[in-house]
């Protein structure tokens, strides 16, 4: 290196100073953007927790609402929690097998053009607003038949399907091709290879994708307003009837004039938020674990 170049390193000139300033400026902007993202989550959690945590107690989870309550009556949202459990559980039961089969077909069997086509379809389906899915299911299954819990679950399953299938496709793609070859070279048919060698590698990924999809649809309100929202106050586990759910309960309570109803809405929102935070964190944990497992197998 020439001496002049070395000198430039030691005595910064104007151009170098300007570059350093721009560098610092951009770094600061990027840092601010990241800080804003974190802050928004923080503010949401904090404001919901502040208003909801004080109202959170066992009665909220176990007692049904009492209409036109006079005086200090212990009332809760048991019907909404039970309904949400049934609806989301059923939705998962519908979306999970279909999503896994779609992913297996796309990744293990389909020729390239079909693979790309199905992938695009899943992305489009994922982008459809939930209220559109809601009105579609309303027109398909509610008009003339009435609202039912399982119909709400079906609407949520439509929302879950692309999420489950997409994440499953990603995990299947992580399974090294050398394992499939090893099995096929033994004279094992393709479907046995998929079941016996490929799928066991993806358990962590399936759980992760499912948990994320559940977290996503547990808070969906619009499809349930169309399909499972005209309900009484008694707690029911029967998906053959319309069931109350947490998001719909939050929506309805927040429209009431009574401040006690608002408080319960906040408490329900807090429970929903806790559930989603917990689900996301456990999904993240499972994803890291399964990726590490597959990575080891690949070597």
């Amino acid at each position, binding site marked *: 290196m020439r001496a002049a170049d070395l000198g430039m390193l030691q005595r910064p000139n104007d151009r170098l100073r300007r570059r350093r300033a721009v560098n610092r400026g951009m770094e600061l902007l990027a840092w601010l953007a990241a800080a804003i993202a974190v802050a928004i989550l923080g503010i949401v959690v904090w404001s919901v927790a502040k208003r909801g945590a004080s109202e959170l107690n066992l009665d909220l989870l176990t007692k049904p609402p009492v209409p036109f309550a006079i005086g200090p009556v212990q009332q809760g949202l048991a019907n909404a929690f039970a309904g949400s459990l049934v609806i989301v559980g059923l939705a998962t039961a519908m979306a999970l097998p279909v999503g896994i089969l779609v992913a297996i077909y796309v990744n293990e069997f389909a020729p390239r053009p079909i693979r790309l086509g199905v992938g695009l379809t899943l992305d489009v389906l994922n982008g459809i607003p939930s209220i559109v899915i809601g009105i579609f299911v309303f027109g398909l299954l509610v008009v003339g038949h009435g609202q039912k819990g399982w119909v709400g679950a079906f609407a949520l399953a439509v929302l879950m399907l692309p999420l489950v299938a997409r994440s499953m496709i990603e995990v299947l793609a992580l399974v090294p091709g050398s394992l499939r070859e090893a099995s096929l070279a*033994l004279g094992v048919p393709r479907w*046995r290879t998929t079941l016996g060698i490929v799928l066991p590698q993806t358990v962590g990924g399936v759980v992760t994708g499912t948990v994320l999809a559940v977290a996503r649809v547990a808070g969906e309100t619009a499809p349930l307003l169309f399909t499972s929202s005209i309900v009484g106050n008694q707690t029911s586990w029967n998906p053959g009837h319309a069931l109350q759910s947490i998001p719909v309960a939050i929506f309805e309570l927040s429209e009431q004039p009574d401040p006690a109803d608002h408080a319960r809405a906040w408490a329900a929102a807090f429970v929903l938020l806790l559930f989603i935070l917990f689900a996301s964190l456990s999904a993240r944990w499972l994803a890291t674990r399964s990726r590490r497992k597959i990575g080891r197998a690949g070597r």
Partner: protein
Amino acid sequence: MRETKGVSVSVSSAIERAVRVETKREPLPPRERLQQVFEIEDLTAVYGSNPALKDVSMEVYKNLVTAVIGPSGCGKSTFIRCLNRMNDLVPGFRQTGTIRYHGQDIAAKDVDPVAVRRTIGMVFQRPNPFPKSIQDNVAWGLKVLGMKDNLPERVERALTQAALWDEVKDRLKASALSLSGGQQQRLCIARAIAVEPDVVLMDEPASALDPIATQAIEQLVHELKSEYSFVIVTHNMQQAARVADMTAFFSISRGDEGERWGELIEYDATEKLFTAPSDKRTEDYVTGRFG
């Protein structure tokens, strides 16, 4: 200066080793008296629009080790993957010509590749054990293929044949991924021979292994050839000289418009091919003037 000397020393010692093994080899009976396993005629293989192999014709004989050598890109891997229809899995792959396996054309469209792979096993370049226990790696193929009688004995036999039993007999339940690379490759060999194939194809089985593990694999092939027929792809000429009875030399040919494909240049008894090759290109390759 020093580097050049080091290289020349290692090459000459490798050749000495090769020659030492070669001299131990019994002479091959004349080809007419050998039993054919594969009879390959005008095999041409194409990936998409790129030719990989053109007009390969040769025979593979029973209970011999047949080596396929040649420079990178000469189609030697493509060639052995044709022998058990592994290339069917590659999109855009097409082949023409016939591959008669004990007289039956296995390259034909109506032949089930699963049945072909059932009797023609394969060991890959990189060890690829299943992420299961050592025992399950060997037993899985047996279970799926319905060879469930005497399962523990079959597993032990395969591991013994693969010279791995003594090292793993106390930890059969341990993960196969806890084994060393050389042990993993021997496990893959055990897995392949457990289902009692007729032919074992090996695609550069030692290229990811250290010299000692390589030696173990070569020893193994030498001992097992009385039971199986082996076809081994290798880019290591010393290895071919050490283990193979017959050697096929593939090379790259270039067309007028710059297209390249692999071709079989010479196929002969290993000793003949290495000491008195009849083609100039073979001679250049085995003497190290090319590739």
